[in-house]
């Protein structure tokens, strides 16, 4: 008995002493309230950079499946007026330290200021309260500095001065207020110099900001991770698409804690990122068996993991090293330095997040979700080309499986899949017992959120491949089974989502009406709630409400084709919502007064849709006395209390079924099901977008930049050139890659896919690459430095531009242009004084800034 009690106590002790959750308090440095606003441009750059990098770091930590770390930001937003004094930022961290002693770590993110030429990164720690040379504190600061030098590609200011990071008072002559009263290890990093033009360009670059955030993340992980992996080496390298390779890996681990630890360690080959709901039993692709460890502080040990089954590697797989303390049930990630190095998986692939909502009453439910690259067609046979490349012949990600045995009727399944960025096009499949549906994602961009709603019971069928085949594609490969997207008019159950520079572009077909939806989730404008008992009279665009994590999508019911606006919330939604409608012109400028209505319908959080709110759009329009006509564009804004106000806007384009463009000068974008061009003279910058067919009849003159495409995937197209017919293969999702290389004075192009036919005729066709046009949502300034004139070249959609502004270094507006935009414009800067100027291109969704120097 005594022995049992002792062992129980020992196990409990081990469990409790290995409670490893961490709390990372991230301080996004200054906001606009700070008195360092000596130079507005510099301050704006720093404030934005601090905030963006802090939130990227927060996102990285929170979306990392293996880490159960809590992230706390020292301020909730980046608004002027929400400044938090340095002592309060420390007090926030201290409040968490009081509840979780020894588990809280602090990072303050800043940008530096100097004489305009200083450059590089530097990191400070405050050793005042600690014993001299607190090893963990110094190690943390040094790791932050090293990672920012390596991954951020910065000059090492701290290292160059004294060979390492610096104690604040030693170099600065004072203790930094934000570090002075911290109860836990914390450091402050100055990413780069916001008053140095070169540094500033880097600080304002979104890609670099992501790298800075990841550098911080790895510094935190490698410093405060519980069991640090010193090194790993691959003895037998697993190969792609091979069934006869054994994987053998050597891993050396080190206990970096200050107490002895013991447990088990294992290595797994997994897809990255993992599904968010994984249970401890859903392991697959383990290399060999678990190894036990007992490590005293700083002790190292090397393990060999040898797979005893053939391993077939796939794109996107990662080596994961995991451990769990003795007596603890869950496996935790140790440190995973290998997922990029081992398989070169691009971290900037498209993260597909899917949510399947189950509204069935039966408890036997479940679903699976996977993605595969769209098969490439052989140019001659028009069949899937399996020989051209293994990597694109329908490789599938292993299905994310929603366990039916643990699923209740009102549960939802969340799925995350990473699609490599080199997959230009992918299909995400969702399958249940009754049927499957596919969502086409193309082109792949950084983040796509796909929310899928089904009215059918979700029940897993047999042979779903839910784990019986290690690391292989699921049984019933979707490449062969689900080759044809089920998109038909009148029974649409899916929608397409393309995220372009933070904007989502949705197309939607229902019955005989075609709708195009432009959703603009960014920028997020909000202010503190100023009224609670809202009435329509106070519901307007200037006093709108706070946004939390809430998505907005559209879906239809299969049978009667009601089109509903649905939203999901992470927490329970409240019972009321506001809807605002306002009519717009083609440039999305408002052309009518706002119609608002307070809808009293209760959103039952316990309904089978589980936390889904929905409204019948037709009903909303009817109740607001709005009759839709062809050509109408409406902005619909929805606010939900959940419990903070959440707002989303969506634009409805009511398209005509047939559009005849005849004898007129075209400008801008044209949407319809079928578009016929006849006797045209296209001036410039015209986009013809149809859901079914585009016909450009002979004798139509086309000039300037012209773009014509249907907004669905094109499987095949062919070209009639005078007397000959030439076939093309569509490798690139309807982007006219072959066409770009084809020149002819007279040609007829015939686009064919499963559902529609598009015929275009052009004699001087210059088809702009659609993908590049969207991705190049940026502008160039040249020459830089400038002397008399500067040129601004913008490759994006000029209809989105609201204004172009030039500000001097004190923030004074020097020049503002609000109309007459073109893709290349010239500005006279002759009268500008020599110095640094900021060019801001303000769009409907965001503003882009560039800096130039006037000599």
């Amino acid at each position, binding site marked *: 008995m005594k022995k049992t009690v002792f062992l129980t106590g020992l196990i409990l002790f081990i469990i409790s002493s290995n409670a490893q959750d961490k*709390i990372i308090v991230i301080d996004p440095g200054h906001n606009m309230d700070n008195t360092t606003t000596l130079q507005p441009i510099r301050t704006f750059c720093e404030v934005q950079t601090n905030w963006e990098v802090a939130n990227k770091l927060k996102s990285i930590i929170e979306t990392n499946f293996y880490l159960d770390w809590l992230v706390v930001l020292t301020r909730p937003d980046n608004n002027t007026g929400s400044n938090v*004094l340095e*002592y*309060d930022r420390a007090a926030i961290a201290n409040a968490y330290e*009081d509840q*979780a002693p020894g588990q809280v770590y602090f990072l303050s993110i800043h940008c530096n200021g100097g004489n305009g030429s200083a450059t590089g990164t530097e990191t400070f720690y405050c050793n005042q309260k600690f014993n001299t040379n607190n090893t963990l504190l110094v190690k943390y600061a040094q790791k932050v500095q090293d990672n920012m030098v390596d991954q951020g590609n910065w000059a090492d200011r701290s290292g160059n001065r004294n060979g390492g990071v610096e104690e604040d008072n030693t170099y600065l002559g*004072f203790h930094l207020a934000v570090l002075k009263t911290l109860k836990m290890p914390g450091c402050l990093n100055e990413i780069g110099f916001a008053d140095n033009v070169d540094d500033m360009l880097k600080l304002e670059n979104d890609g670099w900001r992501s790298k800075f955030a990841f550098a911080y993340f790895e510094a935190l992980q490698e410093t405060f991770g519980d069991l640090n992996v010193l090194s790993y080496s691959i003895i037998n390298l697993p190969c792609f698409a091979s069934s006869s390779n054994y994987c053998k890996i050597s891993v050396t681990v080190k206990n970096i804690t200050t107490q002895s630890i013991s447990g088990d360690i294992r290595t797994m080959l997994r897809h990255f990122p993992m599904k968010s709901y994984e249970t401890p039993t859903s392991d697959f692709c383990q290399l060999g068996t678990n190894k036990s460890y007992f490590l005293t502080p700083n002790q190292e040990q090397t393990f060999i993991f040898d797979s005893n089954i053939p391993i077939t590697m796939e794109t996107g797989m990662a080596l994961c090293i995991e451990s769990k303390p003795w007596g603890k049930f869950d496996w935790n990630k140790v440190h995973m330095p290998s997922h990029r190095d081992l398989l070169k998986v691009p971290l900037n692939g498209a993260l597909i997040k899917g949510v399947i909502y189950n509204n069935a009453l039966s408890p036997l439910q479940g679903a699976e979700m996977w993605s595969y690259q769209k098969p490439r067609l052989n140019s001659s046979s028009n069949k899937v080309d399996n020989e051209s490349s293994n990597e694109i012949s329908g490789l599938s990600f292993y299905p994310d499986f929603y366990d039916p045995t643990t699923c209740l009727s009102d549960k939802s399944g969340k799925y995350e899949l990473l699609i490599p960025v080199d997959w230009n096009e992918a299909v995400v499949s969702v399958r249940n017992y009754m049927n499957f549906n596919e969502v086409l994602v193309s082109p792949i961009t950084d983040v796509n959120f796909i929310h899928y709603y089904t009215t059918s019971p979700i029940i897993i069928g047999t042979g779903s491949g839910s784990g019986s085949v290690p690391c292989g594609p699921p049984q019933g490969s979707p490449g062969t089974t689900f080759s044809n997207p089920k998109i038909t008019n009148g029974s649409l159950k899916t929608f397409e989502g393309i995220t372009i520079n933070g904007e989502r572009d949705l197309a939607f077909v229902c019955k005989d009406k075609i709708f195009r939806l432009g959703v603009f989730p960014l920028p997020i404008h909000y202010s503190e709630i100023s009224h609670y008992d809202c009435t329509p009279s106070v519901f307007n665009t200037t006093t709108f409400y706070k946004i939390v994590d809430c998505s907005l999508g559209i879906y239809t019911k299969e049978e009667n084709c009601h089109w509903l606006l649905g939203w999901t919330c992470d927490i329970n939604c409240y019972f009321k919502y506001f809807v605002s409608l306002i009519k717009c012109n083609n440039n999305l400028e408002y052309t009518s007064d706002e119609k608002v209505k307070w809808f009293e319908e209760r959103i039952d959080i316990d309904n089978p849709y589980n936390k889904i709110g929905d409204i019948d759009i037709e009903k909303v329009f009817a109740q607001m006395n709005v009759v839709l006509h062809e050509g109408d564009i409406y902005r619909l804004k929805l606010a939900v209390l959940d419990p903070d106000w959440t707002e989303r806007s969506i634009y409805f384009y009511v398209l005509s079924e047939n559009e005849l463009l005849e004898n007129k000068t075209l400008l801008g974008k044209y949407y319809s099901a079928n578009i016929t061009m006849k006797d045209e003279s296209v001036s410039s910058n015209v986009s013809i977008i149809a859901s079914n067919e585009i016909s450009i009849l002979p004798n139509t003159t086309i000039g300037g930049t012209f773009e014509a495409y249907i907004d669905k995937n094109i499987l095949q197209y062919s070209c009639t050139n005078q007397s000959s017919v030439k076939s093309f293969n569509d490798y690139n999702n309807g982007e006219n890659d072959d066409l770009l290389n084809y020149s002819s004075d007279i040609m007829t192009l015939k686009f064919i896919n499963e559902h529609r036919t598009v015929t275009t005729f052009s004699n001087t066709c210059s088809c702009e690459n659609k993908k590049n046009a969207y991705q190049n949502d940026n502008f160039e300034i040249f020459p830089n430095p400038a002397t008399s004139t500067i040129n601004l070249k913008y490759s994006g959609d000029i209809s989105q531009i609201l204004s172009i502004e030039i500000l001097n270094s004190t923030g004074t507006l020097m020049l503002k242009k609000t109309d007459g935009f073109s893709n290349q414009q010239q500005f006279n800067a002759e009268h500008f004084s020599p110095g640094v100027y900021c060019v801001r291109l303000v769009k409907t969704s965001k503003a882009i800034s560039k800096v130039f120097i006037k000599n």
Partner: protein
Amino acid sequence: MKSILFLTALCTATNMLFAQNEKFLDPSTCPFQFGAPTTITKKGDSFNHPRISPDGTKVIVTKTYTGVYVIDLKNTTPVQTITTEHMAGFDAKWSKDGSEIRFKECAKQKNGKTTKELLKYNIMSKLVSNDNISYSKTDNTSKPREITVSLNIKRSMVEASDGTRTWDITKTPKVYYSYVISPDQSKVLIHENGKMYVYAMDGSGMLCCLGNGHGQSWSPDGRYLVYFLGVSDGNVIIDSDIYICSSDGSKRWKMTNTPDKIEMWPNWSPQGDMIIYDEDKSETIEFVRVIQK
């Protein structure tokens, strides 16, 4: 729910008003009269965070958490050293009868082990010992249990406990910190996003918003608070003054107005006759006498 949201909105509006306009009432309307500041420590001693004993005769100070010291107000020398441990002195406070000082030593590496301790110092025996039971224990168990307030980090909510039950003070999950309970335990001041909010201790919700402020301390009757407002240059606090406000947030006055000083971390004496604080520029401890008009 409605009232809470309304109060939130009201407080936000009030807060913005104060933050933008810095409106303070004329000193003549202040119910208190303040004496000239008296410096009780030598320049450069670097003592800070003073806390006055229940009888008003002694003061606990720390040196930015690198030790705990006691200053006798009747005889400023010598300063009594309780500990010179690093990371010691957080949340130092007096026991109700003034016989003991309780303070925290925060998580740190000590002899190869990570330690975090609650300690107590007996004034009479001059011994430091562990006090790991709880801060919430009262000196006399026959009295009503003392209420403690803490952050539930999983829920991001502030909770109160009397030892027998736990209840929510705040209503929505946010980043809360720095809680100070009123002398009669009917209210608690909580910080959120740089601002001070007064909540009812019974869990009925927020009572009012006091605007920006730090390092607050209640008056003995719970009707007023003293706090400081600092100005930062982004690296250090370059200016700070001490303010008094009514606990319902309706009135506020400047107590100090000294551009050449950085007054911070005020503490109102239990007798109500003294406010003590540290002056960061000269690194000294000062106090002013308080006379109720």
